[in-house]
């Protein structure tokens, strides 16, 4: 089943200064969101395969939109994350079906490699509610400078029978990272952790 997409929105956020210091080059995050019809709104359906297929479609579509919005080559992506917010006539399990079984592989293709788990969050919500998308380094989950998040919100979504699906990609970590831990330059990127 293909996603019935009502809207797609893409945000690109650049931070040029933080606490009085210039950030050069600016740190940049992109988030792409699709607002789709929930095919299972209002009823209990045991088999969630359709949503898993939609997850695969959106992982590639939204990952690619982020990379294009950043104007980078896929291999230049440094961190990623995903999240979904389900309108009130759905259930939390619908978010899980979109996000977990099949969204990751096409997203990894869009950013090249991606050895690390894609950090995620999910919730039920209504129009205008905040969705915080967690971010982590795409090849080594322990890279501390890239633990971050980005907030998305749309005044008109998700309606009761909709689901908002978000994918975030960055080409950088936090603006002034200085809490130690594993550095991106030291990561091996083989096991997805270090």
């Amino acid at each position, binding site marked *: 089943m293909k996603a019935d997409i*009502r809207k797609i929105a893409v945000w690109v956020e650049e931070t040029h200064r933080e606490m009085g210091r210039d950030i050069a080059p600016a740190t940049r995050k992109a988030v792409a969101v699709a607002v789709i019809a929930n095919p299972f709104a209002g009823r209990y359906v045991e088999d969630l395969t359709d949503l898993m297929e939609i997850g695969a479609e959106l992982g590639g579509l939204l990952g690619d939109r982020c990379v294009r919005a950043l104007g980078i080559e896929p291999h230049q992506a440094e961190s990623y994350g995903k999240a979904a917010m389900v309108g009130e006539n759905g259930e939390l399990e619908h978010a899980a079906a979109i996000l977990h079984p099949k969204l990751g592989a096409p997203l990894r293709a869009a950013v090249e490699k991606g050895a690390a788990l894609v950090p995620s969050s999910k919730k039920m919500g209504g129009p205008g509610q905040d969705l915080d998308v967690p971010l982590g380094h795409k090849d080594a989950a322990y890279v501390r400078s890239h633990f971050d998040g980005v*907030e998305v919100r749309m005044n008109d979504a998700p309606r009761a029978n909709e689901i908002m699906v978000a994918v975030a990609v960055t080409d950088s970590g936090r603006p002034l990272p200085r809490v130690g831990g594993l550095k991106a330059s030291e990561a091996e990127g083989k096991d997805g952790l270090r």
Partner: protein
Amino acid sequence: MPEPEIRKLLTVVEEIRHEGGPRAERPLLRAAAVAVIKNPFAGRYEPEIQGFMEDLKPLGLMMARRLVEALGGDPARVEGYGKGAIVGAAGELEHGALWHAPGGYAMREVLGGAKAIVPSAKKVGGAGARLDVPVTHVNASYVRSHFDSMEIGLNDAPRADEMVLVLVMTTGPRVHSRSGGLEAWDIKGEDGLR
């Protein structure tokens, strides 16, 4: 006066395919360019503030160019526009009014002489405040199909000594426009109104 001190830049593009009705042949695009800058007048009453309008012109042009780029690169495709400002709590509403001239000038310049007044909204707010930026037709303010708005906000801005400046452009009417009034194809486009 030095050039505006930019902390963050944000670009948002929304692609609206439908809103419960027939799917648009060409989705409506709405884009916003947002700059978070330091308010040079924060924390005091400054009688003379107009010099800052000149300082904001290059920023306005950069934002307007980014918008056209985000909408595909062709200024002729832009049919609606609007602008707005959120002033952090250590500033005053009047500081937001400084955006009228440079923001409007920049969009007209980049669009090649749009005729209609650029609708605007402004307010004082804190981090996370949302602004509904009004949008109308670029050549005839009475075109009913193009009355629209776009909600903008950032979770971390404006801080008390900052201002959030916004420009918005759209590529067409509301996705299911059918409320009558002056239609875009009936305008004269001479006086900016009809």
